[in-house]
C-alpha cells in the first residue's frame, strides 16, 4: 500500500504543522520518512551541536505514527546560503529575509537532494500553501486556503521543476483544524505554541547576531533628518536599521520620523516623515518564475512586499528571467531593499524576486 503512493520525505521541525503534515501523509498511505534539518548550532552553545530537545518532539511523533525519523545536517548549506548573506545584507544597509532564502536554497534545494538520496519521490513540509494543477496539468503554487496563515510569500523561490514533487498537506486546512487533527491523533505537539519566524536569531536580536558574527565589519555613522537636512544623531552601525523603522532613531520631537534610506558606504541613515516612506515603483532582482514565461510588460498582478502585508494591485512594467519592475496602483509603504517582492494572480504565485530599489 505504502509502495503504491511512494516515499515522501517530510521536513519536521517538531512543531504542530509539520507533525500533522507527516501524520496525514502516513494515514493516507505514503511511505513517510521524517527528517529534521540541523541548520546551525547557536554560537557559544557548549556542545557545538543541536540539543536533543530540538528534535525530540518530532521523534516522538514519528514513533507514535510509526515511521522512521532522521536528523540530517545542513549546516554548511545554511551557513553559505542563509547566514553569511544575512550578515552581509544587514551590513549593506538592507533587510534580509532569511526564511525565504532558507526555503529557496536549503529546504527546496538541498533537502530535495537528500530526498533523492533517501529514495523519496516527494518532499512535504508543514507550510501553509498549496500546489494545484492547472487544466493543462501544469503545477502551480497557490496561497493557502487560510489566508491568515498563508506562507506562500516565503516559498516564491522554489524551482518550478520541483513543484510536481511537493506536498503541503496542511495547505487546505486552518490552524484550528490542524490542532484538532493533532489532538485527535494524540500527537504530543497538539498544544505547542507557535514558533518564532526566524529560527536562528538569538534573544538579543538580529543586530547582536550581526555584531557577533562580523564584529570588524560593523560601521557606525550618523542619522540625517531629510526634513531639516541636519544630523540628528549618531548610531553604532547601519545593520541596526530597517527602512520604515520608527523606533530607536533618537528623534523625539515633532512629527514622527521613519528610516527612509540607508547608505552603507557613508554609514548614513536617512530619516523623514511618513510620506517619504511611500513609493509606487519597485524593482526586484534574482527573480524566480513559477510560470512558463516571465509575464509580459503591461500585465496586471498583485504584489506582496512582506509576509504580513495585504497584496496590492500593480502593473508589471518589465519582467525578465533576471528581475522585474512594477508600478503599484496605490502607494506601498516602506519598500525594504533585501525583502522579497512576490507577484500573485489571485491566489496563484507567479514568481518573485529580491527588492533592490523603489521610487515615486
Amino acid at each position: 500500500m505504502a509502495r503504491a503512493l511512494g516515499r515522501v520525505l517530510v521536513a519536521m521541525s517538531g512543531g504542530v504543522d509539520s507533525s500533522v503534515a507527516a501524520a496525514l501523509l502516513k494515514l493516507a498511505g505514503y511511505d513517510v520518512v521524517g527528517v529534521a534539518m540541523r541548520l546551525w548550532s547557536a554560537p557559544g552553545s557548549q556542545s557545538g551541536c543541536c540539543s536533543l530537545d530540538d528534535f525530540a518532539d518530532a521523534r516522538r511523533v514519528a514513533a507514535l505514527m510509526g515511521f522512521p525519523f532522521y536528523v540530517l545536517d545542513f549546516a554548511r548549506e545554511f551557513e553559505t546560503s542563509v547566514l553569511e548573506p544575512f550578515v552581509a545584507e544587514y551590513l549593506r544597509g538592507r533587510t534580509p529575509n532569511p526564511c525565504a532564502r532558507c526555503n529557496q536554497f536549503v529546504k527546496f534545494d538541498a533537502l530535495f537532494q537528500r530526498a533523492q538520496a533517501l529514495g523519496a519521490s516527494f518532499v512535504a513540509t508543514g507550510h501553509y500553501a498549496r500546489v494545484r494543477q492547472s487544466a493543462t496539468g501544469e503545477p502551480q503554487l497557490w496561497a493557502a486556503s487560510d489566508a491568515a496563515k498563508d506562507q506562500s510569500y516565503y516559498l516564491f523561490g522554489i524551482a518550478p521543476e520541483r513543484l510536481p514533487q511537493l506536498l503541503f498537506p496542511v495547505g487546505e486546512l486552518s490552524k484550528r483544524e490542524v490542532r484538532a487533527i493533532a489532538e485527535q491523533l494524540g500527537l504530543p505537539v497538539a498544544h505547542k505554541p507557535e514558533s518564532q519566524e526566524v529560527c536562528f536569531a538569538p534573544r538579543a536580536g538580529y543586530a547582536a547576531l550581526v555584531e557577533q558574527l562580523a564584529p570588524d565589519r560593523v560601521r557606525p555613522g550618523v542619522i540625517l533628518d531629510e526634513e531639516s537636512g541636519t544630523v540628528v544623531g549618531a548610531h553604532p552601525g547601519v545593520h541596526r536599521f530597517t527602512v520604515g523603522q520608527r523606533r530607536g532613531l533618537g528623534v523625539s520631537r515633532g512629527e514622527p520620523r521613519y528610516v527612509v534610506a540607508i547608505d552603507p558606504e557613508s554609514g548614513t541613515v536617512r530619516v523623514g516623515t511618513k510620506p517619504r516612506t511611500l513609493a509606487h515603483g519597485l524593482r526586484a532582482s534574482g527573480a524566480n518564475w513559477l510560470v512558463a514565461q516571465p509575464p509580459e510588460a503591461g500585465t496586471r498582478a498583485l504584489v506582496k512586499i512582506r509576509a504580513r502585508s495585504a497584496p496590492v494591485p500593480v502593473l508589471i512594467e518589465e519582467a525578465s528571467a533576471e528581475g522585474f519592475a512594477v508600478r503599484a496602483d496605490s502607494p506601498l509603504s516602506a519598500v525594504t531593499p533585501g525583502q522579497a517582492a512576490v507577484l500573485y494572480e489571485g491566489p496563484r504565485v507567479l514568481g518573485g524576486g529580491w527588492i533592490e530599489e523603489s521610487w515615486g
Partner: protein
Amino acid sequence: MRIYLDHNATAPLRPEARRAMLGALAEERGNPSSTHALGQSARAMLEDARAQVAHALSVSPGEIVFTSGGTEGNTTAILGAALASKKRVICTTPIEHSSVLRPLRLLADFGFATHLLRVGRDGRVDPQELRETLRAGNVALVSIGWANNETGVCQPMAELSAVCREQGVPLHSDAVQALGRIPVKVALVDLLTASSHKFGGPAGSGILFVRQGTALEPLLRGGDQERGLRAGTENVPAAMGCAAALRACLGELSQAMPHCMKLRERLWEGLADLPGVVRYSGNSAEFLPNTLSVGFGGIPGDALVARLDLEGVCASVGSACSAGAAQPSHVLLALGVDRERASQVVRFSLGVENTAAEIDEAVRIVRSVVLEMALGGARREQWRVR
C-alpha cells in the same frame, strides 16, 4: 532482516553477559558494603567479577575500578591524575574521543596546559616526538587512545609506553575501542579505560585500570567503595555482566580477529570500485580488524546512513551530534581531511556474529544505493546547467 554493522557504537549483548546479569538480579539484594549475609553475598559477587576482569587483563584485582563507562573512566583518569600531580601539562593527541578532550578543556581553567602531539597522515603518534615533549618537562600525564573509533587506527603503544617509562611520566590509554577487538597489553600503561557495552556487556558499565602506586585523585567522592577511587554503591549486576562479556570476548579473540578482518575486506572489495570511493581506515595490522571507514564522493554521510537504515543496514556517520546528524569529525579534520569529505564518511564496524552472507547482502544494498545516489547527482548537475 537487519544487518548490524555498527559495533563501534555498541555491540550486541553477549548471552554470557545476559545470563550473568539475570543471575545477579535474581539473587536477594544486599548492599556490598553491608556486613550482613545479603551484603556479603553481594560483595562476593562483586569481588568475583573484579577477579575475573583482573584475570582476563592479567592485572591484580586491586587495580580494577568499576565505573559507569568510558566517559567516566576517561574523566576520572585525566582529572584525577592531573589533580594528583604538581606538574601542569597534559600531553595527548587531537584525535582523542571527546571524553578525553573535553575534560582537558576544563583543566585549562585550573591552570593546566594541553600539549597536542602531532599525528601523521596515517593517524599515528611519533614516539620520538613524545620523547622530546616529555624531556621539556612539566608533563603530569600522557593520554593516548589505543585505537580510534572512527578510523580504527591503533597507536604504537609499546613504543609510547617505553618512552613514558624512560621519562617517568604516567601513561593513560582510552582503550574503549581496543579492548575486545585486538590484544591489549594492560601492563604497558598506568591507567586504562574500557567500556563494557563495546565488548558485549551492558551499557552504563566500564572498567578503569589503575596501576598500583599511580597517583590519582578520585572524581566521585563520598564512600570508600572501589578503594576510595569511586564513591557510590556498586552496580553488582553490571559488574557481573561486564566480567562475563570480557571473559567470553577475550576467549574467542584469536578467532574473532581474522573473522572480522576477512569480512571487512570482503565488504571493502565489494565497494572498492564504486565511483568516488575513499577508504579512510587501513587494512594493515595497525588498524582495528573490524572497522571500515569510507566516503563516497558527493554523497552526504548522514543521508547515506539514513537510506541504508531504510534498506536494513545499520551503520554510522564518522562523527555524529547527539541528535544523530553528521558533524565534521575532529578526528578526520586532524588527519587533514577537508570538511566536505569528512561529512561524507560512513563507518561500518563489524562483530564476531556477522556472517559472510550478511556482508554480501550489505554490499549489494550499499552498491545499489550509492550508484542510485551518484546517478541522481549527475542528473542534478544537468538541471543546474539547464
